[in-house]
C-alpha cells in the first residue's frame, strides 16, 4: 500500500420487512442416517468387525501357522473351550478376588496416609519422601521379597498389589488436596465446615479429578502387577492353594508352555475384556457422574 485509500461513501439503506417465512428451516433435525454415522459406538463396532474379518481372511489366505498366529475362529473356539472345559471363568474369578482385596486394602492404607499428610506438614513431608522413593519402584520387583516373607500364596501377591496401589493413590490424593484453591477453602470455612465434614464436603469433591486419576493409575498398576505375578510365579503359587486352578495370568502362561497358542490368544482376550470393562465402563461411569458433570475434567 503506497497511498492510503480514503473512505468510500455510499448511500444508506434499510430493509423494510424481513420475511420470517423466507428463511426456511432455522433449525432442522438431522436425518437418521446422519445421526447413526455420527454415533461413536456404531462406527467403532464397524471397525472392530472389519478388523476381525481381515484377521480371519488373512490367516486363512496366507496359511499362517496356528503356532505363530491362530485364526480368529480358532481363538473364539479356544475361548469357548476355556470357558466350558477349562475353568477359565473360575480363573478370572480367582484373579479378581485377589485383585479386589489388594486394591481395597491399598485404598484404605492410602487414605490413612493421606489423612496424616494433610493434617501436618511433617506428615506431608513423610508422605512425599516415601512416594518419591517408592512410587517408581515396580511392585513386581518386590515379589521375590514377598515370597520370602509370606511364602508362596495369595498373601505374597496381595502384598505386592498393596505396594502398587498405595503410592499412586496417596500421591495423587495428596497433590489434589494441596492444590485445592485457597478461594474454595475459604468458602468452605466461611460456611462453617470443620474437620471431617470439611474434608468430606469440600476437599474431596474439590480434589476429585486428581483423586480419580490416582485411583485409575493405581488400578492400572495393580492389574499389571497381578498378571505379571501370576505369569512369573503363577504355577508355584497356584499349586499351594488347595485344588484351585490359579489365575488368568497362569492360564496364559500354562497354555504357552503347552504351545496351545489359540488358548493363549483366548486368555489375552479375556485380559483385555476385564481391563476394558474396568477402565471404560466402571471408571468412565464414575467420571461421567462426577467430574465431567461438574465440568472439572482432570488433565
Amino acid at each position, binding site marked *: *500500500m503506497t497511498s*492510503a*485509500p*480514503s*473512505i*468510500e*461513501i*455510499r*448511500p*444508506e*439503506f*434499510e*430493509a*423494510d*420487512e*424481513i420475511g420470517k417465512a*423466507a*428463511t*426456511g*428451516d*432455522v*433449525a*432442522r*433435525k*438431522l436425518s437418521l442416517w446422519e*445421526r447413526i454415522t*455420527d454415533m461413536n459406538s456404531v462406527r467403532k463396532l464397524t471397525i472392530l468387525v472389519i478388523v476381525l474379518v481381515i484377521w480371519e481372511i488373512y490367516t486363512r489366505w496366507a496359511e499362517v501357522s496356528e503356532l505363530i498366529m491362530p485364526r480368529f475362529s480358532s481363538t473364539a473356539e479356544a475361548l469357548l473351550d476355556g470357558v466350558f472345559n477349562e475353568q477359565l471363568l473360575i480363573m478370572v474369578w480367582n484373579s479378581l478376588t485377589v485383585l479386589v482385596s489388594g486394591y481395597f486394602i491399598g485404598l484404605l492404607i492410602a487414605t490413612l496416609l493421606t489423612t496424616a499428610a494433610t493434617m501436618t506438614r511433617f506428615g506431608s513431608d513423610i508422605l512425599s519422601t516415601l512416594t518419591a522413593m517408592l512410587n517408581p519402584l515396580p511392585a513386581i520387583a518386590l515379589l521375590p521379597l514377598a515370597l520370602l516373607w509370606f511364602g508362596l500364596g495369595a498373601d505374597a501377591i496381595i502384598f505386592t498389589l498393596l505396594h502398587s496401589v498405595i503410592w499412586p493413590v496417596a500421591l495423587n490424593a495428596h497433590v489434589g488436596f494441596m492444590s485445592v484453591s485457597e478461594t474454595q477453602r475459604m468458602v468452605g470455612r466461611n460456611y462453617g465446615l470443620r474437620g471431617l465434614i470439611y474434608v468430606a464436603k469440600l476437599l474431596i469433591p474439590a480434589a476429585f479429578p486428581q483423586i480419580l486419576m490416582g485411583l485409575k493409575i493405581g488400578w492400572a498398576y495393580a492389574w499389571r502387577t497381578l498378571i505379571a505375578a501370576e505369569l512369573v510365579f503363577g504355577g508355584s503359587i497356584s499349586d499351594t492353594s488347595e485344588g484351585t486352578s490359579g489365575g488368568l495370568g497362569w492360564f496364559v502362561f500354562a497354555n504357552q508352555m503347552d504351545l496351545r497358542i489359540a488358548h493363549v490368544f483366548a486368555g489375552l482376550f479375556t485380559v483385555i475384556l476385564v481391563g476394558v470393562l474396568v477402565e471404560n465402563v466402571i471408571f468412565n461411569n464414575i467420571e461421567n457422574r462426577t467430574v465431567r458433570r461438574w465440568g472439572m475434567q482432570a488433565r
Partner: protein
Amino acid sequence: MDAKTDTVAGKKPATGTAKPILEVDGVTLQYKTKEHLITATYRVSFDVYPADRFVLLGPSGCGKSTLLKGIAGYMKPVEGDIRLKGREISEPGPDRVMVFQEFDQLLPWKTVKQNITFALRNGGKTSNAAEANEIAMEYIHKVKLTGFEDTFPHMLSGGMKQRVAIARGMAMEPDVLLMDEPFAALDALTRLQMQKELLQLWEDTHFTVLFVTHSIEEALIVGSRILVLSPHPGQVKAELNAHELNHDNVGSKVFARVQQRIHDMLFADRILEDEILGEELDK
C-alpha cells in the same frame, strides 16, 4: 439520513470508482450439531470497501461471530459466496487475521513478543527474525505493553491479553482485520484508550477492519459504516453511515439521533421476538 432508497436486503453500488475489497453475497451459514442443523445467518449480503471501518451490529446470538468465521474461512457458506479481492475464500489465511472474543487466543507457550513474531513469521509477513522482532516491539508499544514483551500470557490480566491479541492482529497488516468484540472485556478507561488507539492507527495506515460489537455507541464511534443485523437467524436490516461520528461528537444531536434510530431498529425486533416467543409458549 433519509437515504432509505432500497427496501430489499441487497447492496448499493458505491458512487465512486473504488471496488469493494470484500464481497459477501447472499451468505447462509449453518451449524451442524449432534441432533440439529442450526441456521445462524440467512442470505446476508454486504460489501466492504478498502479503508472501511465496517461494523457488524446486532443482538446476541444473531450470527455476528459466525459471519466473521465465514469470512475468515473457518466455515463454508451453504449458499452464497464470500470474495476477497475478487477471489473466493476457501480456507483460512493470513490475509484475514482474526482477533477473537475469547481470552485463550494467545499461545500460552510463547511470550508476548513471541506470540507476535510467531504470527509474522508463520503468516509469511517476514522471514527475518530481527525484522519480526522490530515490528513486534513497535506494536507492543502501540498497545502500551512495553516492558511486558517477555512475559508469558498466563501472567497478564484479561485486558492485557486482549491488547496483545490486537497488537498481533494489527502487526500482520492483513487485507482485512477481523475483530470480534475485541474491547468487550476491557474496563471503561482502557476501552476508551483502545478505541482512540485503533482510530489513530487507522489514521496512520487506513487499514480495512471488520468489527463486531454489542454497543451502539462503540459502533458509531469506531465504525465508518454499520451493518445492522436482525435477531437469530441474522439477516441484514440496514446499512448506515457513521464516518462523521467520533469521540468528539458523542453528546451531539446527530449522534443521539442515529443512536436512537439504531436502538429503535433493534428494540422493535426485541418486541417482535417476545411476541413470537409468547405465541409459541401458548401453543
